[in-house]
């Protein structure tokens, strides 16, 4: 049986037997964990790599759906009163957060918009982040941080504490001392 065949069977089983209110990703996460040996010490480097990447694929789905999910470029254009090209320009100049899977369409997380505008602090943080990887941006805004006592940079932006959010962006993933 091919990998694609196994995936199709998994799809069919999940579609048929998924308990109500349970996400398919939760099932897959459990499935991945069930394959991990009890003793972590027995996992070699290659196996460890496969596991962390598999978990990462599920984590990506969680980020995609976080805080109301994401919308397409056309919807962003409507929301901001811009042309489609205008939205592309904002994305290319890293003034808004956008992600895509593979070479597909760009998606724009809803949490960065408010009252027909890009929230204050989003562009400023993006400017100071050391990476231009869209998933790195998503992780930055949506991950609780120890140095913020468990709050996320997005929480700071939502509460209007933009200067602190920018300070976090300047420290983000730099070898300093948090």
């Amino acid at each position, binding site marked *: 049986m091919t990998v694609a065949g196994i995936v199709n069977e998994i799809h069919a089983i999940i579609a048929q037997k998924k308990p109500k209110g349970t996400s398919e990703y939760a099932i897959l996460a459990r499935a991945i964990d069930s394959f991990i040996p009890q*003793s*972590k010490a027995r996992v070699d480097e290659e196996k460890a790599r496969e596991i962390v990447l598999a*978990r*990462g694929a599920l984590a990506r789905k969680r980020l995609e759906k976080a805080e109301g999910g994401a919308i397409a470029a056309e919807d962003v254009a409507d929301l901001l009163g811009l042309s489609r090209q205008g939205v592309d320009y904002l994305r290319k100049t890293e003034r808004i957060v956008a992600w895509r899977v593979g070479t597909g369409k760009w998606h724009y997380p809803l949490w960065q918009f408010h009252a027909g505008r890009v929230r204050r602090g989003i562009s400023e943080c993006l400017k100071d982040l050391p*990476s231009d990887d869209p998933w790195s941006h998503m992780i930055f805004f949506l*991950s609780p941080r120890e140095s913020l006592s468990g709050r996320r940079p997005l929480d700071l932006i939502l509460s209007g504490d933009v200067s602190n959010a920018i300070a976090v962006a300047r420290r983000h993933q730099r070898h300093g001392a*948090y």
Partner: protein
Amino acid sequence: MFRTQSPWRAGTSDMVPTDLARWIHAVRLPLVRLPEKLIRLSQRKFADPIHWSQLGIHRFDSPGARYGVLYTSNRVETAVLEVFGDQWIKDRQVSSIDLKSYEVCEIEVRRSLQVLDATGKNLNRLGWCTKSVTGIAALRSKRATGKARRGSISELIRDRGATQPPAHFHRNPTGCVSFGPLLCRSSVEDHSGYSPSSLRASCQNTQQRRYTRHGLGALDANFFATTEYAITQEWANALMTHPQAPVGIRYNSRKNPRRINYAVFGLAVAKSAVQLVKRYPLLDYSRLFGFLFQYDVEVL
């Protein structure tokens, strides 16, 4: 000597002694030798990974400081925790593109240099010194207040135990973050020989209770894990001008207190001794994914 007015600077939540440098200079510092090999993670885009920061965005560097600060670790794993660990308290995620963008930089220290050992009981000792000095200052302040109002100072002296140390010396300050969750999720010994899983049984283990409540971790959380960087930056500034001339600070990682970091001050002697000897992609580090797996990290 010490001011007879309140030794605390008003207007900050933790309150900072105004004569900090003076009394730090009076303290005999516990010094240790800076190791011959240090590790730093740097983005590949930077031509020179040895960066003496004066940006004021990290724990010990500030624009007004006499020297810049080079942040290093004792191991690659420690450096990874320093760079990525702040965001690993719930879902521990890192982008594979970000991992790809970093290099491991091996730094050699080519002469004997002494740094302040701010780990374990040494930190405790510094904390004790701090409390003693601040206690004396506070008592003097009360005595002065008593004299000023022509009253007896006996009550004030009797109540001196009520003098509160600054919040950054509290065992469990408000807002203090715990590294417990990060440690406990991993279930095997990490490369430092420290067993994160052993903390799960901490309530049944005296040694671990001491660790959490009275020992290194707690003190580290008090001072070296405060998010009031103005305080730690002021400490670093005072240490830079200390008569014993330490060239940096040896301190515990917040993410795993068994791991050690070194903040090196940019004195001329340190700058000439520190040499970059090797740099290679982080992804080429042979134990990277095993380490990320142990810490339950998800790589996107």
